[in-house]
């Protein structure tokens, strides 16, 4: 599976399109699904100005909604610029972009909201957000 990209659109759009493939990237990963079996919630990923809702049900990523209704509730938010998600998804990311906490500490990403479910399932959410490394193509 590769991200369809003919050189059209912005980096932001490419990142959003790639994020939207999380359900299929996670679908057959039984270890990941088991790790997140107690996680059922919506969380937000922002890519620059674009807001995406990611829905998780018992460890399965069931939906990524890049056109959400306003004032929709979520558990927590992971936010970074498109350039930072690009660097995060490289197969061998540079120091500082290799991990969500590294990005957070270095000021490349923010992690906000109700962090209890995030921290209760920390490795699971780190692994979910790293799934696009399997298909991300550096432009």
């Amino acid at each position, binding site marked *: 599976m590769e991200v369809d990209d003919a050189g059209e659109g912005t980096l932001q759009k490419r990142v959003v399109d790639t994020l939207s493939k999380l359900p299929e990237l996670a679908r057959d990963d039984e270890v990941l699904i088991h790790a997140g079996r107690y996680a059922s919630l919506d969380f937000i990923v922002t890519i620059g100005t674009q807001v995406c809702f990611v829905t998780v049900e018992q460890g399965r990523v069931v939906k990524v909604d890049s056109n959400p209704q306003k004032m929709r509730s979520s558990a927590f938010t992971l936010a970074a610029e498109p350039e930072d998600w690009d660097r995060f998804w490289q197969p061998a990311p540079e120091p500082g972009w290799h991990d969500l906490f590294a990005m957070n500490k270095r000021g490349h990403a923010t992690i906000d909201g109700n962090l209890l479910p995030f*921290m*209760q399932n*920390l490795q699971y959410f780190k692994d979910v957000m790293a799934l696009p490394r399997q298909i991300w193509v550096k432009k």
Partner: protein
Amino acid sequence: MKAGIEPILGRYLNCKIAGTDYRIYFEEAGEGTPLVCLHTAGSDARQWRHILTDSEITRNYRVIAFDMPRHGKSNPPVGFEREQYRLGRQEYIDLICGFCDAMELEKPVVMGCSIGGRIVLDLGLAHPSKFAALIGVQCSDHHKPWYDSTWMHRPDVHGGEICAAIVSGMMAPQSPTVSVQETLWYYKQSGPGVFKGDLYFYGAEGDIREEVSRFDTTQCPLYILTGEYDYSCTPENSEATAGRIAGAKMTRMKELGHFPMSENPAQFRKYLMPVLQDVHQTKAN
């Protein structure tokens, strides 16, 4: 896998340090200059097993790695259940010196990683003539806690899982999966609140930037090795530390993170061997 017994010998030391009785587990291998290895916060001496089984190292060094009390196979002191564990700077210095004295080690080299890398600076400041050399791995004279550490010890978050998940991103993406997972396993086995308690002195006594300029490397050589993927103690932190200590030798290690000796032993070896050879040569001269 071919069956084989490793040359590591594990024993228990009963001793009194600063008025407290301890039963400390240690492992050792080799002969020569004592090389005492200090594990990271929230882990134990198993992190050093590749150093203990490296015949090129054990040919010249008696490598000794001990579990701090509350870690690995070293029990907490009597009455631990009635106190909140908070490692203090002086307590940590006393523990290391007390261990070395009880073991009757003469002018050992001490190599520590993370909090162990930090405390070697304190050892050199407090007891410059006691050690043949100090090696700080992931070593900084200034550590400011940057996240809420209460997550590491609360009843609604699994302690082992959260400690491992926090440190998982401190390793380099190039490190072998098997070694990364072994490093995380140690964290998953850590006792409740121990990782958080180990980090306490970072917050309370973490800034010794003004003191380190007194570090006398003519009395005690200092080597600093820091992996580039460590976002907790960054190479920039270590370089700034080395810049404040005349004669300190700092090396930035590529494709390594916060746990060089266990996350990628082969890669760490490339950087450690020249240091150990330098120490050995200096001692011979």
